[in-house]
C-alpha cells in the first residue's frame, strides 16, 4: 500500500515533535541544535551557515545529520573535485564517465563494461574482515545497480611493515574478508596487488574494484523521474550499523580509533547474491525508472542523488522502512549504512509485479514513498514531518574548496655509481624475490575463488587478469597498479607512472587498454604538503591519460588517511581495463617451450632511485623515481601489442618493481623453464642494469624462427631492443652469475608469506 504523503505539508519542526521509545535519546529529533552538536557533525561554521540559508531555518537533528553526511569529504569530494575536473574523461568508447555509480565503456556488439574501484580503508583498519568484505559488497552494488552482471573482482591492498604488530592480523582479516564475500556471491576475484610499507602502519588501504557486463540498451541510471511514481526499498533491513561511516571516513585516525568499531558495517554476502539476482531479474523487465544502491550515507545519499539528479522531490514515510532493530529514530534510519539495500523508482502500478520477484528471492520489499514535484526530500515519521530539505541546493551547493597546496620538492637523482654493488649478485636476486613486496602472493590468491563463472582465462600472477566475455570470443583484461614510493618522491612522475603501468600491464597480455578507474588515497587535505601531493599526482595522471588516450571513467577519493598526524604515502591506485576481440591472442608471462629467444624492449639505464632494490638491499628510500617518457611508452607498447596480436609472441612480461632480473626470474618460475641470459650492460654497473626500474620496458619470449623478423621490425620502427638470451634447461643463468635452479627460485619466492603468516 502506498502511504499517503501530502507533499504540501508545512513542516513543523518544533522540538516537541517526536516522543518515542528510541533507545538512545541523543538521536531523537527533538534535541536542541547546539554549536557543539554542529561541530560533532563535522560541519564548519561556513557550511552550517549555508545549511541555514538553504533551509531558511534551524535544521532538525535528522536534517543536520543529512547535511553532515552529504557534505562530508567522503560524499561531497569538497577538497578534491576542483582538481578531479581536470582529468580526461572522454573517448569515443566512453558511454558514461564519472558522475554515475560506475564508468561505462563500449566493447561492441551492444555490450558494455561497467567498472569502478572504491576504498574501504578506515573500516578495514578497525575491523579487517568486515571492513574488507563490505568494501567488496559496496563496489559490487555500484556495478550491478547500473544493470551489469558483475564478472570480476580485483583489489589493491596496502599494509604497514611486516614487523608492525598489527600487520599480520590486518592482512589475514582483509584477505579473508575479501574472499568470504566474493566467493559467496560467486564473482571471481581475479587478482590485485599487495604492498607493505611503514607509512601504512596506522592506516591500511583496502581498495576494491569490480567489473561488470551489461547490454548497452539495458543500462540503468539513478536520476528519478515521474511525479507520483512509487519509490521502493529492497534488500536487507535497516539497522544501526554504520551510522556515521561516511563522517568517519572523512577524519583522521587518532588513538581512540577503537571506539569507532560500532561504525563498521557487517556484510551479508548471501543477501547480496540474492539481491544481484533479484535486481537483474527486475531490470530485465520494463518496470524500473531509476535505481541506486544505498552505499555510504545509506538512504540519505541514495535518495538525495536520485531526487536531485532528476530534479524532483521524494516524500518518504519512514515508518515503512524495513527495520532490523526496535525504536529506530529517523536520524538513525537516514544515516544507517546497513548493507545490501537498494532504492528503486518503479513505473506506476507495477508494485505487485516487482514485489513478486523480491518475494521469490526472500528479500524485503517496501513502498516507502513517492516522487513529488516539490524538489524536496520530505520525511515523515509517526505522522509528523521530521525533515524537509530542498535536494537540489543540498547536492549542488555542496562545498568546494581550493585548498592551499605546496608543490613537493623534487628529490635529487641518485646515480647508479653511488650505490654499492651487492657482494653476491645471486644472493641479491634471491633476497629480492623473497622480499615482502616481491614474493609470491599465492597465500593470498588461494583464498579467493579465482575461477567461479568459468570464464577466467588468466589467473592472478601475470601482468593482468583476463576474463572471457561469456559466450563470446572477446575478453576483458584487468589490472590494478600504483607505486606509492614513486608518488612520494615525485607526485607528478608517480601519478604518470601509476597510469602508465596499468596501460603497460594490459598491453603485456595483448589487450587494448581502454579506460581506467582511480582510487585516490591521500592524507589530510587540510595540510598544504598533502594537497600538493594530490595536485601533483592528478597532474601526472592527466598527462598519462591524455597521451595514452586512456580516460578516467569512474573513481573515488579517500582523504584523511593519517594517524596521529602522519600521512600515508600518496597512493593513487589505478584500475585499468582493456579488451581483446579475440581472446585466443592472449599471452601470459610463461614462455611456452625451450629454445625461445628472449628480447628486451625499451632502454635500460639502471635507474635505482626510489627502487625496490634500494629499499630491500640498502634499506634506503631516496632519490627521484624513474621518469616515464609517455611518447616512448606508447611507441614501445603499441609495438609489443601488435606483435602479440600478430601471433608472433609466446610470452611477454613488463618490467616493473625489482627490474629486469626479477622479471626474468618471474618468467622462468611461471614456465618452470630455465633461461640462459647475457645482457650487454655497457657502462652501467650490472646491479643497476639488473635491478634498475627504468620505465616502458618489456621482455618478449618468441619462437626462434620469429626472432629475426621481430628484431628487424623493431629496428625499422626505432623501438629500442636487445636480444638477451634463450629459454631452456632448468636453471636461470644471468651473465656470469652462478646459475640458479628453478626449484631454488620457486622455494625462495614462495616461502616468505606462508611462513610470515604462520609466525602469528
Amino acid at each position: 500500500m502506498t502511504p499517503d504523503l501530502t507533499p504540501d505539508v508545512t513542516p513543523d519542526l518544533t522540538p516537541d515533535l517526536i516522543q518515542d521509545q528510541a533507545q538512545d535519546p541523543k538521536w531523537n529529533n527533538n534535541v536542541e541544535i547546539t554549536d557543539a552538536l554542529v561541530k560533532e557533525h563535522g560541519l564548519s561554521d561556513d557550511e552550517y551557515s549555508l545549511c541555514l540559508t538553504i533551509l531558511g531555518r534551524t535544521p532538525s537533528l535528522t536534517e543536520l545529520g543529512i547535511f553532515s553526511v552529504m557534505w562530508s569529504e567522503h560524499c561531497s569530494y569538497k577538497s578534491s573535485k576542483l582538481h578531479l575536473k581536470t582529468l580526461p574523461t572522454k573517448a569515443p568508447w566512453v558511454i558514461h564517465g564519472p558522475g554515475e555509480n560506475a564508468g561505462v565503456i563500449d566493447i561492441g556488439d551492444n555490450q558494455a563494461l561497467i567498472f569502478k574501484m572504491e576504498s574501504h580503508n578506515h573500516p578495514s583498519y578497525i575491523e579487517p574482515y568486515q571492513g574488507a568484505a563490505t568494501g567488496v559488497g559496496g563496489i559490487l552494488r555500484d556495478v550491478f545497480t547500473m544493470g551489469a552482471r558483475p564478472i570480476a573482482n580485483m583489489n589493491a591492498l596496502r599494509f604497514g611493515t611486516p614487523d608492525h604488530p598489527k600487520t599480520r592480523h590486518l592482512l589475514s582479516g582483509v584477505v579473508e574478508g575479501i574472499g568470504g564475500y566474493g566467493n559467496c556471491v560467486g564473482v571471481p576475484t581475479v587478482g590485485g596487488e599487495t604492498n607493505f610499507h611503514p607509512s601504512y602502519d596506522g592506516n591500511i588501504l583496502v581498495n576494491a574494484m569490480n567489473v561488470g557486463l551489461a547490454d548497452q540498451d539495458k543500462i540503468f541510471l539513478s536520476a528519478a523521474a515521474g511525479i507520483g511514481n512509487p519509490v521502493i526499498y529492497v534488500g536487507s533491513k535497516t539497522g544501526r550499523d554504520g551510522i556515521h561511516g561516511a563522517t568517519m571516513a572523512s577524519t583522521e585516525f587518532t588513538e581512540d580509533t577503537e571506539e569507532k568499531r560500532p561504525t563498521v558495517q557487517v556484510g551479508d554476502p548471501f543477501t547480496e547474491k540474492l539481491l544481484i539476482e533479484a535486481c537483474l531479474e527486475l531490470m530485465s523487465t520494463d518496470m524500473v525508472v531509476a535505481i541506486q544502491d544505498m552505499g555510504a550515507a545509506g538512504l540519505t545519499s541514495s535518495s538525495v542523488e536520485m531526487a536531485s539528479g532528476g530534479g524532483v522531490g521524494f516524500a518518504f514515510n519512514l515508518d515503512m522502512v524495513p527495520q532490523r532493530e526496535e525504536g529506530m529514530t529517523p536520524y538513525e534510519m537516514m544515516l544507517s549504512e546497513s548493507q545490501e539495500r537498494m532504492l528503486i523508482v518503479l513505473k506506476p502500478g507495477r508494485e505487485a509485479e516487482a514485489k513478486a520477484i523480491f518475494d521469490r528471492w526472500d528479500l524485503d520489499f517496501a513502498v516507502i514513498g513517492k516522487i513529488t514535484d516539490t524538489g524536496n526530500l520530505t520525511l515523515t515519521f509517526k505522522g509528523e514531518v521530521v525533515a524537509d530539505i530542498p535536494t537540489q541546493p543540498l547536492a549542488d551547493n555542496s562545498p568546494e574548496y581550493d585548498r592551499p597546496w605546496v608543490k613537493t620538492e623534487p628529490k635529487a637523482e641518485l646515480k647508479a655509481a653511488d650505490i654499492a654493488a651487492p657482494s653476491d649478485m645471486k644472493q641479491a636476486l634471491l633476497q629480492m624475490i623473497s622480499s615482502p613486496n616481491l614474493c609470491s602472493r599465492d597465500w593470498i590468491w588461494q583464498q579467493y575463488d579465482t575461477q567461479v563463472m568459468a570464464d577466467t582465462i588468466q589467473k592472478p600472477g601475470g601482468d593482468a587478469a583476463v576474463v572471457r566475455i561469456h559466450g563470446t570470443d572477446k575478453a576483458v583484461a584487468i589490472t590494478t597498479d600504483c607505486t606509492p614510493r614513486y608518488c612520494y618522491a615525485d607526485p607528478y612522475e608517480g601519478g604518470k607512472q601509476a597510469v602508465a603501468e596499468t596501460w603497460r600491464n594490459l598491453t603485456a597480455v595483448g589487450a587494448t587498454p581502454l579506460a581506467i578507474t582511480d582510487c585516490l588515497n591521500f592524507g589530510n587535505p587540510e595540510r598544504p604538503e598533502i594537497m600538493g601531493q594530490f595536485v601533483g599526482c592528478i597532474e601526472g595522471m592527466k598527462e598519462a591519460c591524455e597521451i595514452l588516450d586512456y580516460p578516467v571513467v569512474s573513481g573515488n577519493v579517500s582523504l584523511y588517511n593519517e594517524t596521529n598526524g602522519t600521512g600515508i604515502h600518496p597512493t593513487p591506485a589505478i584500475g585499468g581495463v582493456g579488451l581483446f576481440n579475440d581472446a585466443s591472442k592472449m599471452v601470459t608471462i610463461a614462455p611456452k617451450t625451450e629454445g625461445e629467444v628472449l628480447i628486451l624492449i625499451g632502454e635500460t639505464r639502471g635507474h635505482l632511485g626510489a627502487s625496490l632494490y634500494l629499499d630491500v638491499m640498502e634499506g634506503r628510500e631516496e632519490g627521484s623515481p624513474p621518469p616515464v617518457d609517455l611518447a616512448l611508452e606508447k611507441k614501445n607498447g603499441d609495438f609489443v601489442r601488435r606483435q602479440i596480436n600478430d601471433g608472433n609472441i609466446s610470452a611477454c612480461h613488463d618490467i616493473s618493481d625489482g627490474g629486469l632480473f626479477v622479471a626474468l626470474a618471474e618468467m622462468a618460475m611461471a614456465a618452470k623453464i630455465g633461461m640462459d641470459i647475457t645482457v650487454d650492460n655497457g657502462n652501467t654497473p650490472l646491479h643497476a642494469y639488473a635491478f634498475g626500474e627504468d620505465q616502458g620496458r618489456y621482455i618478449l619470449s618468441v619462437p626462434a624462427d620469429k626472432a629475426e623478423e621481430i628484431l628487424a621490425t623493431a629496428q625499422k620502427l626505432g623501438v629500442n631492443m636487445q636480444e638477451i638470451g634463450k629459454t631452456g634447461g632448468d636453471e636461470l643463468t644471468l651473465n656470469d652469475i652462478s646459475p640458479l635452479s628453478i626449484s631454488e627460485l620457486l622455494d625462495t619466492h614462495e616461502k616468505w608469506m606462508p611462513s610470515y603468516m604462520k609466525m602469528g
Partner: protein
Amino acid sequence: MKTAVIVFPASNCDRDMIVALEKTTGQKPHIIWHQDEEIPPVDLIALPGGFSFGDYLRCGAMAARSPVTKQVIEHAKRGGNVIGICNGFQVLTETGLLPGALMRNKSLKFVCKDVNLRVDNNDTPFTNAYSEGQIITVPVAHHDGNYFADEDTLKALEDEGRVAFRYVDTTGEATKAANPNGSQNNIAGIINRRKNIIGLMPHPERLIEDIQGGSDGLGFFKSMINAIN
C-alpha cells in the same frame, strides 16, 4: 541425455554446470528452483557448487531440507544418476545419500587452486572416460572440503572401490602435501554402493575447454554421456 540442475539460493556454480552440460550433451538442462516440488523426468540431476543459503549453518544443511531435495532423493532411490560438486557434495552428505561429512579445511582457510586427482575407479558412470590411475588436473575452491567418515565407513569406501578421485602429487602419490584440505585418505570424490551418485569437491565443470587452462574436466561429462546413452 536429459539433465536437470538444481538452484538453491546462493548456488553460484549453477551457470558453470548448465554451460558444461549443454556443451557436452548438446541439450539444455532443466533449471529447477529449490522451491519447486516437481522435477521433470531426467537421466541426471546435478547439484552445483556455491554457498546455498550462505552456508551460514553447516554447509549444505539447509539445502538438504529444501522442498526440491525430496525429489532428488526419490530420483536417486529409483536409480537415477545424481552428481554433487563442491556445495552439491556437501548437500549429498547432509541428505545421507552419500556417507561421511565435509568439515572445515584443515588450514581453516578457503582454498582455490589446481590440484592433481587420481582416478581410482574408472568403472562408474562418472569416470569411465578416464583410465584407471589417470592423473588429471582440476581446480578446487572451497572452505569446507575436509572429508571425514568413521572408520567402518572409510574401510567400506576403500574396500568397495568407492573412492572415485583422490588428491595426489604429480607422480600419483597420495601425499600429505598434495592434500589441499586435510581429507581422510586424500579423498576428493566418492560414489554410493549402487554407483548412481557421486559427490566430489573439485570442479570438473570449470575445465572443459583449453582456453580455461585445460580440459581435464571433460572426461567427467563424457563418462556420463557414455553411461547414459
